[in-house]
C-alpha cells in the first residue's frame, strides 16, 4: 500500500523549473531517502508535499486522498508531520511540554496525551531530557526534539529535512537509530539527506533528484552504482 503518491509533479519559479515531471510512490512503513546534488529540488519537494508551496502541475495523494492544493495545517491534520533542519523548538518550554504540544493537538485522544508524549520522547531517545528547557539543548538534541514533537502528533508520515546536517558521527548514528525506531513503530519516514553512508545503511529505497528531475529510483545498492547518479554528483570525465 503506498501511503504517499506523487504524480507528474512540477514546480516552476518564474521560468526556473525547480521540479520537472516527478512521479513516485512511497510504501507504507518504509524508510525512503531523497538525495541529489545541491539545488536539485529536494527541499522544494518537501515544501510541495506539505502544502507550503503551491505546485505548478501534478497530483499528490496521501493515503489515497488528494491533497494537492490543500492548506498546510489541513495536511498536517491528516497525518503528515515534518521535522525541520533548522529546529524551531518552543524555547522557554521544557522538552516534555514541547512534545506534549504535538500530542495535544495531534490525533491522540485527550486521555492518551501524556502516554503519547512519553512514548514519543522514548522513541526519539530524549526521555532523560524531559524537564530541561528546550533552550538548553544542543543542536543534535534539538533535532531529536523536532522528531519527537512531530511523531507525538501520531502522524503516519514523517518528512525529515536533513536530520543529520551538521551532526558528528556519533550524533548521526543516534539520529539514524531514532528514525529506525520511528519506522518500527509504524510511521513511514521520508528523509532528505546528504550523508551517504547513513542513507545507504538505513533506507529501503532511494530517490535521486538532479536539477528537478528524478533520475534514479531503487534500492540503495542499485542507485549507488547507477552511472547517471554518479555523473550527477561527480560529473562525467569528458564534461566540458
Amino acid at each position, binding site marked *: 500500500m503506498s501511503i504517499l503518491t506523487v504524480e507528474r509533479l512540477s514546480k516552476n519559479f518564474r521560468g526556473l523549473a525547480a521540479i520537472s515531471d516527478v512521479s513516485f510512490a512511497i510504501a507504507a512503513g518504509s524508510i525512503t531517502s531523497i538525495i541529489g546534488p545541491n539545488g536539485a529540488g529536494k527541499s522544494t519537494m518537501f515544501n510541495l508535499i506539505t502544502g507550503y508551496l503551491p505546485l505548478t502541475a501534478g497530483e499528490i495523494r496521501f493515503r489515497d486522498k488528494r491533497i494537492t492544493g490543500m492548506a498546510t495545517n489541513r495536511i*498536517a491534520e491528516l497525518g503528515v508531520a515534518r521535522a525541520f533542519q533548522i529546529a524551531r*523548538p*518552543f524555547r522557554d518550554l521544557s522538552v516534555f511540554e514541547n512534545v*506534549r*504540544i504535538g500530542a*495535544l*493537538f495531534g490525533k491522540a485522544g*485527550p486521555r492518551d496525551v501524556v502516554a503519547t508524549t512519553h512514548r514519543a520522547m522514548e522513541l526519539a531517545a530524549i526521555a532523560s531530557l524531559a524537564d530541561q528547557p528546550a533552550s538548553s539543548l544542543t543542536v543534535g538534541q534539538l533535532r531529536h526534539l523536532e522528531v519527537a*514533537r512531530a511523531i507525538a502528533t501520531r502522524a503516519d508520515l514523517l518528512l525529515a529535512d536533513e536530520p543529520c546536517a551538521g551532526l558528528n558521527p556519533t550524533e548521526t548514528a543516534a539520529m539514524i537509530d531514532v528514525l529506525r525506531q520511528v519506522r518500527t513503530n509504524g510511521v513511514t519516514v521520508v528523509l532528505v539527506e546528504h550523508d551517504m553512508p547513513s542513507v545507504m545503511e538505513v533506507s529501503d529505497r532511494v530517490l535521486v533528484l538532479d536539477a528537478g528531475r528524478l533520475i534514479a529510483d531503487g534500492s540503495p545498492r542499485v542507485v549507488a552504482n547507477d552511472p547517471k547518479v554518479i555523473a550527477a554528483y561527480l560529473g562525467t570525465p569528458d564534461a566540458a
Partner: protein
Amino acid sequence: MKRNPTLVFLLVAVAVVVLAAGPLYLPPFYVRVGQLMLYSAGLGLAWAILGGFAGYVSFGHAAFIGVGAFTAGLVEGQFSSLPPFLLLPLGLLAGAACCAILAALIAYPILRLRGTFFAIAMLGVSHVCAEVTNNIDFFQGSMGLNFPPIAPASMDPANFFYEIYLVAALFILLVSWQIRRSRFGAGLLSIREDEDTARMLGVPTERYKRLAFVVSAVLTGVMGVIYAHSLGYITTDSVYRDDTNLSLIVYSLLGGMGTLFGPVIGAFLLVFITQVILGRLLDFHLFATGLLLVILVLSAPGGVAGLLKKRKRTAT
C-alpha cells in the same frame, strides 16, 4: 509549581484566609492598600492571560477598565430603583458583556498584528476609548458618572470592597490557573513561543488568540466595574490611564512574565513600594513606576521569577 501542587494549594489557601481576615487586624490605611493590591493583582492576572500566556503584550488594557466601568455606570443609572445588592451584579454583567463585544469586534483585525504593532494598536484603542468617552456627552466622561453606594449598611465600605476585590482576584486566579493547565493554555504558550510552528502542529492559533483576548478583556472589565463602584464617582481620567496601561505590564515583568503567580507577586510588590514605602510622596509614585520599569528592563527582564530561576540554575 509542578513540583508540589499540594503545597502551593495550601499556601494559597492560607494566604486567602489571612487576607480575608485583613480588615479585622489591619488599620484603615492598610485596608485601602490591600484593596489596591488585590485590584492590581486581579488586573495583572487578567492582562497576563493575553500578554503572559499568549505573548501578545497589550499596551492598552486600560481600555477595558474604562469600558467596563462606564458601561456599568450607565446601565445601572437606568435601573437606579433597584436595591443596592442587585446593582453590582447588573453592572458586572453589563460591563462584562460590553467588553466581550468590543473585544470580539476588534480581535479580528488587531490580532493580525504581531509584537510591537499589536502593543501600539492596543495603546491606540485605549486612547480612542478615552477620547470617545470624553467627547461624547452620552458617556458622561467629562462630566463624570456617579455610582450609588452598594455596601451593606452594617459594613464599612472600605472593608466591603476589600472583600469583593479579594473574591474577584481569587476568581481570576482560578480562571488563570484553569487555563494554564488546559489544552487551551498549552496552545497559548506555544503561540507565544512560535506561532507559526504552533499552527503547523495543529494548534488553532487564530481561535485561541481571540478567545484569550476576549477572556482577558472581560476579566479586566469586571475589575473595572468594581473599581468604579469603590470610587463612587468616575471621570474619563480616573479609568483611562496610561500609567495603568504601563503598570499592568510591569506587574508581570516584576513577578515573572508568563508565570501563574507572577502578576500577583508583581502587583503586590509594586503597590507596596509605591503606596507604603513612597506613600508620603504622593506625586512621586507615577514617577517611581516609570523609574522602576526602567531599572527593571535594564537589570532583570525576567522579573523576580527570572531571578529565582537563575539562582536555581547557578546553584546546580
